[in-house]
């Protein structure tokens, strides 16, 4: 449907796009992702004929965009801009009806077909109930749906959306993208620039990753959102996990941090340990973790952050070998974080050279008989685990007796 062939665009000396090749087929919602200034809007602007390619071409349904009149192109391609500047007291209904502009000659009156298209577009986008309100009296999310309605009213074969969700609440974002999905389900095509990578992965059939005017990767979200791609494109550290609800790639971009030379071991599993592992790893500590049974969410987090882990089979008792392995890791670590309350982890914590106990854990184990060491340890809220570790690292390590194998 949309074919971008060897497209390059330069503004003066600035190369905005170079050699971009991209196809959007009918029935497909393709997400355009990449950092700000990567060339996403430039690409969309070329497809809707606003910008002229320096080299290469864009065709829509076989027709070169550069050869089409604005009117002919507007019947094929509709655009939903990031924000619309219309702040005049036009009724919503009239704004939607402006979508029929490319179908009407200058002297033609509004035809029943035009009205039908406008009504249907308003039904689908759920703006019909405020059709008589003035456009400057509706909320940002409603207004964006009005613009989508206008684009649908244009009855195009292809829909371009330029970060239509950028300024919206999450429920409005999901609504706009669901509308785009419905649109392509009718055998039409849509290309949507979108800055939220996880949202893009969730709604789009394919993604195209653009950075510095070049297409870095295109294809299924799982392959495009590989960590190395994202890190290259955005110049930061990124962690890609599987979203627990949708199963689609979930990207967390973190500020890249200088490596720290301290080694921290995290004891425990579940949510608390998962969070401790993630924050410590992204802060730049060298982290190890365990014992973690297969299936534990902390294990997923650990793997996503390339953390060394000691794993065990789920629901199986921890055998001696595994125990020794973890014990060695704890003894080697400059600091150990206790994030689990079970017996095994508490026992292992006694081998730590420096210990930080997560507050929730401390509250639970403080009266226990095993608490001699724990009481002398530093207690930190899970949100401040990094500060806790740093403070503890400033202190002297505990002198360790070599623990006997039990």
């Amino acid at each position: 449907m949309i074919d971008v062939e060897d497209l390059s665009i330069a503004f003066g000396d600035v190369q905005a796009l170079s050699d971009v090749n991209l196809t959007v087929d009918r029935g497909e919602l393709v997400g355009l992702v990449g950092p700000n200034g990567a060339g996403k809007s430039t690409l969309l602007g070329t497809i809707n004929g606003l910008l002229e390619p320096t080299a290469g071409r864009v065709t829509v349904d076989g027709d070169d965009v550069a050869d089409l009149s604005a009117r002919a192109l507007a019947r094929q391609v509709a655009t939903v801009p990031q924000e619309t500047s219309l702040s005049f007291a036009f009724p919503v209904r009239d704004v939607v009806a402006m979508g029929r502009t490319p179908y009407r000659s200058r002297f033609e009156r509004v035809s029943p077909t035009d009205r039908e298209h406008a009504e249907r577009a308003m039904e689908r986008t759920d703006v019909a109930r405020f059709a008589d309100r003035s456009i400057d009296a509706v909320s940002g999310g409603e207004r964006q749906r009005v613009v989508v309605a206008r684009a649908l009213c244009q009855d195009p074969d292809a829909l371009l959306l330029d970060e239509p969700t950028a300024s919206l609440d999450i429920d409005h974002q999901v609504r706009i993208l669901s509308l785009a999905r419905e649109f392509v389900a009718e055998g039409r095509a849509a290309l949507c620039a979108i800055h939220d990578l996880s949202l893009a992965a969730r709604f789009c059939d394919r993604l195209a990753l653009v950075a510095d005017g070049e297409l870095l990767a295109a294809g299924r979200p799982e392959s495009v959102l590989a960590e190395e791609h994202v890190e290259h494109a955005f110049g930061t550290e990124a962690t890609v996990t599987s979203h627990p609800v949708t199963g689609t790639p979930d990207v967390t971009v973190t500020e890249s941090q200088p490596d720290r030379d301290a080694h921290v071991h995290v004891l425990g599993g579940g949510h608390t340990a998962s969070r401790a592992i993630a924050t410590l790893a992204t802060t730049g500590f060298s982290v190890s973790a365990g014992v973690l049974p297969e299936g534990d969410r902390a294990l997923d987090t650990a793997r996503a952050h390339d953390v060394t882990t000691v794993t065990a089979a789920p629901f199986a008792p921890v055998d001696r070998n595994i125990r020794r392995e973890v014990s060695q890791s704890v003894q080697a670590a400059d600091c150990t974080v206790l994030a689990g309350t079970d017996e095994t982890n508490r026992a292992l914590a006694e081998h730590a050279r420096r210990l930080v106990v997560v507050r929730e854990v401390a509250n639970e184990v403080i009266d226990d008989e095993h608490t001699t060491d724990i009481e002398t340890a530093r207690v930190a809220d899970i949100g401040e685990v990094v500060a806790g570790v740093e403070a503890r690292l400033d202190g002297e390590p505990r002198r360790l007796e070599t623990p006997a194998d039990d």
Partner: protein
Amino acid sequence: MDGEGATAAARSDARWTIGSRALAWSAGLALALVGAILASATLGPVGIEYGVVARVILDAFPSLSFAVPETARTIVMDLRLPRITLAAIVGFALGASGTVMQGFFRNPMADPSIIGVSTGAATGAVAWIVLPIATPFALGLQGAAFAGALIAAFGVYLIATEGGRTPVATLLLAGVAVQTFLGAVISYLLINAGESLERVTYWLMGHLHNAGWDDVVTTLPVALVVFVVLVAYTRDLNVLLLGENEAHSLGIEVERSKRVLLALSSVLTAGAVAVSGVIGFVGLVVPHVMRLLVGPDHRILLPTSALAGSVFLVAADTLARSGPAELPVGIVTAAVGAPFFLYLLRRREVHAL
């Protein structure tokens, strides 16, 4: 426009199609215009009754004949009506082109002379009066003003255009710069005006006192033809309010539409200014007031602003000529228009397009 006005306009849209609303408002304003013309024709140093005015006008139609006093006929047909009709045409032209310019520039400050049309006309007229040179093609004062207006507007357009594109902001700035420059030229000419200074000043202030039927005959066809073409472009104007990129993606050939709108509006303004001099504020205030009343849709805003401009200028000119000493009508429009506009501004009725 905001709050109640906006929702009221929107609500009434639901019941009325835009076409029937435009028709209803236009019919009402046309009636008001006829009333204003008749009333204006009765007023003056010699009072003439409505009945007599009506009979004089009807008698002018070839198939009708009424017995009317000859003096009344002379006063109404030769003195008052040409002037009143011309006021109506000039007001119509200024109201229409002011609306187009405000929509085109998406700027509430825009008025018909924003790209230098009026200053160009003034330069042409002042040069014609002051300079002892024969104008080419035997142009009269009005011809010189008309030519000056179009040359200035076209010059501004050329300066602001690069590579087939005319950015609106550049156009606006080029207009301001050219107006300033031409202002300097006018001032220089005024220094050397000598005995013709009074005539020049009078022209610059805007006046209709010498109007004759020949002025009506030259301006009316221009105003009507241009207006009809502008009406065909009202939908483009609406879509252009969305911004040029959005207008393009809705199938408007943006640069072509802009050229057409600019050219038409300049011709309309030039035609008005050439016969009447620089009459300020009509093209600025009238579209704002009408936007408050009928909403921002140009399909209704353009015809109503044009007609309201007519009514306003007929009334203002009547006021200008009914005082003890006749005033240039430009003084009256500014003196009445500016305070009214400030009142609207303070009430926050006018804050944007």
